[in-house]
């Protein structure tokens, strides 16, 4: 009997109604939250497992003594260059220019990587020779197992400058051992 309710306690009905309004409002927010959650999880980039030898996997570059000093070898499928420095140390350099992501070719006459997009240049260690590139080429971790060079292209290392500890050495490779 609604009439009786109103008669009995008109003031009590108001807070109850406020509470219900708030409840509806809160439920509405929950619905929006759920929608946002569903849409963002739907659209989130998925992790795909790369094929062996492709970018993202551990790439076997070859025997450590198979590279001549001061040379750069391209691994197109792995998206990197293996640089063998003059002291026999190795660096796995990303082929992406750190400026805007163009692919940098190795110009062997100049001993430089030169970006065709905005003419940034990098030396054999990936260090910036000419701007606008803001930092050296990214590198990938190298492990040398049984004198075979392995490059983990799934883990990109950004660096602000070239440091000697970034270079990996095989057993035969000079002083560091």
């Amino acid at each position, binding site marked *: 009997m609604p009439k009786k309710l109103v008669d009995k306690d008109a003031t009590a009905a108001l807070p109850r109604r406020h509470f219900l309004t708030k409840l509806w409002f809160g439920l509405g927010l929950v619905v929006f939250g759920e929608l946002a959650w569903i849409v963002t999880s739907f659209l989130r980039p998925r992790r795909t497992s790369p094929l062996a030898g492709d970018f993202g996997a551990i790439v076997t570059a070859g025997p450590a003594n198979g590279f001549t000093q001061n040379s750069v070898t391209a691994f197109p499928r792995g998206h990197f260059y293996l640089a063998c420095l003059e002291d026999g140390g190795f660096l796995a350099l990303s082929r992406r220019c750190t400026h805007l992501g163009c692919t940098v070719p190795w110009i062997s006459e100049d001993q430089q990587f030169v970006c065709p*997009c905005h003419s940034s240049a990098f030396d054999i260690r990936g260090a910036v020779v000419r701007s*606008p590139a803001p930092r050296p080429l990214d590198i990938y971790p190298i492990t040398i197992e049984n004198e075979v060079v392995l490059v983990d292209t799934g883990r990109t290392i950004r660096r602000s400058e070239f440091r000697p500890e970034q270079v990996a050495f095989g057993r035969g490779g000079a002083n560091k051992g």
Partner: protein
Amino acid sequence: MTSPPERPHSDPGFFNRIRLSILTDPVIPRTDAERKRYLFRNLVLHFRPATVPLDTLRFSLTWGLGGMAAVLVLLQIGTGVLLKFAYTPTPVAAYASIQSLVADVPFGRLIRNMHHWCAHLLVLVAVLHMLRVFFTGAFHPPRQFNWIIGLTLLSFVLLANFSGYLLPWDQLAYWAVTVSTGMLEYVPWIGFAVQKVIRGGPDIGPATLRIFFAVHTAVVPILLFLLMGFHFWRVRKAGGLVIPHAPGEAPPDPPKRVPTLPNLLLRETVVAMALIAVVMMLAIFFDAPLDAPANPGLSPNPTKAPWYFAGLQELLLHLHPLFAVFVLPLAAAAALLTLPYLRYESDTGGVWFASRTGRMAGVITASAALVMTPILIFLDEWLTRPGNRFSGLPAVIGNGLIPFVCLLAAMALFYRMLRRRFSASRNETVQTVFIFLLAAFSIMTITGVWFRGAGMKLVWP
């Protein structure tokens, strides 16, 4: 017995009954009263007012730009739907599907060319429309919020263009999108995450194409279309367009009005027909480019962003990326969005370039910017290459903060000088600063498109 009701003389026949169930009015209205009713009862036309102020029909007020943009969007939807039947959105098949579209599908090349040229024209027309609205003061109340909607529409047009750019999956597409999405890395904090979401992974690949295809063919068209309705509705709510008048004179009050049909619709049809003719000519005589298939291992030299981003790319050559792709664009967007909400001395709606002073200041400023910008580009090119501007300082400061602060200081000084020395009103001052930046950006866009060659060095086109 009552006789059956006699068939009235005017009882329509079968086919006429079908016609009358769809349309009760005459197919061709002949009197003004008929025309008004026709407009009111027609689904497509009923969002137009029955009458419009005579003076707003002047071609030199609008140049038909808003109508052109609407026509181009319709053309894009028409050609785009057709193209969707011929295109395969996977990296392996996309390029070949475009080749077969051009070579084998009847009228395939024409439709693709039309879509291509309409897209470029749409960016151009939308920007010109924005300039027309700004320079005729059509952003004052009650049109403030429609300026914001217009800016959003412009950004959707750019997004549509940019997402469509990748679809052919040729070298041009692949590297322009690589460079453009590469710019995101310089946005602090969220740049990398946003880039990864847009690319669907760390690199441009199948996921990127899928995302761009969905955005280009569903997300943007739907949002664009809805927002267009909103834009038109706000024009109607503002009482139509600003009424053009000479500086110092007041617009006639109340303005003389004429029926929309035929006066406005006829003019709109003429503009639409002329525009479609231009699009057809472009599509017949100039092919949309199709470069070699995308090769992620080989960046072409030079790699250029699409022309509407060429100004930004030119800025990137001179400034640190943090400032070129983040601070400056953000500042520009914020300035554009706040433009209608500044406190102005007068409502200059309907007066080209606000006033006589505004016109003079505009011409002088534009000329100054047209001379100064190339000089600055040359100076930067020859004096400070290679290396950083102030060697020893970090690039962010030497190449970014110092030039940015200098630019801000120059603009502030310019603003004060206009206000104090020339006692310009705020309408005139804001407009003059806008013209300066617009002219400078146009020069940079032109430089980026035509005067940059291999290695992004300055060349003669």
